[in-house]
């Protein structure tokens, strides 16, 4: 059974609502990577991310009766995860995380340029929480700006502004660290895609 199939997700949701623990377990299995990765990249700490992700699923279990569909379930999970992570960051003392560690901790890729990817993750971890959440929803969850605006309860213009500024910051910092922005550098010429995301 593929829990990512919409009809299967609906069926699992119905069975979980009827109190079937195995069905709820399959829902957790289907969504845990997204929830955990959002938490991990927001918090840059594995233990805190795991705790937060578990709390999100416990909250889901308590509020399962208010979930109307599989799509609503995904929306609810992303919204609650990001909001809880932002709250957590507000309470956390500043500068208690090595940003270089953040890149290492989040590393889980088989890409051909792991150093550059690690650098990108480190730079993302340096962004303030709101633009970081916007970037994660855009590039990890592949949401469009309208969906991000609904998830984070922001205006569409704020979302686009966060995307443009964050991409500009990444380009600038990558450039400042020895990567040319155009030509011989590892990324060639950068252009962002926010202009086409209306």
């Amino acid at each position: 059974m593929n829990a990512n199939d919409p009809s299967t997700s609906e069926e699992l949701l119905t069975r979980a609502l009827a109190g079937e623990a195995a069905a709820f377990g399959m829902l957790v299995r289907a969504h845990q990577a997204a929830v955990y990765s959002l938490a991990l990249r927001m918090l840059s700490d594995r233990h805190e991310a795991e705790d937060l992700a578990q709390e999100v699923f416990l909250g889901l279990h308590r509020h399962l009766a208010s979930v109307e569909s599989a799509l609503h379930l995904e929306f609810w999970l992303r919204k609650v995860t990001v909001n809880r992570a932002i709250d957590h960051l507000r309470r956390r003392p500043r500068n208690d995380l090595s940003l270089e560690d953040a890149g290492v901790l989040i590393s889980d890729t088989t890409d051909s340029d792991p150093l550059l990817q690690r650098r990108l993750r480190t730079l993302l971890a340096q962004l303030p929480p709101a633009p970081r959440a916007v970037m994660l929803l855009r590039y990890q969850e592949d949401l469009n700006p309208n969906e991000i605006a609904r998830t984070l309860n922001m205006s569409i213009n704020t979302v686009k502004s966060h995307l443009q500024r964050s991409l500009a910051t990444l380009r600038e910092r990558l450039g400042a660290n020895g990567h040319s922005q155009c030509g011989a550098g590892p990324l060639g010429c950068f252009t962002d895609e926010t202009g086409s995301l209306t």
Partner: protein
Amino acid sequence: MSNELNDRLRAALRPVDPGERFTQSVLARIASEPAASRPTVRPMRNASLPWLSATALATLVALALMIEHQHKAQHVEAGLEARRQVMEALRVTSEKLDVAYRVVKDKDLPGTEKRGA
């Protein structure tokens, strides 16, 4: 050339699965939670729901019409009772006036005879 940064970001931000141990931890924590915090079962959440709503709505409308009808009937009954009381009052008044008229008429009889003589 144009979307290389976007592609690199997507590659760098691939979801990381925390593994089966995570799933088991979540389920264990749910199992250890008190029953009060477990979700309420919602057995009829699909096709039967609209029919249930329609039936409930129809029942409410019928109840409202019945109450309205009873209210009107009570109103008419109260009107009839008021009318009956007014008629009774008029009848009593009429009788009293009759009696008064007869008394006055009896007292006036001698004078009438005088005028006639």
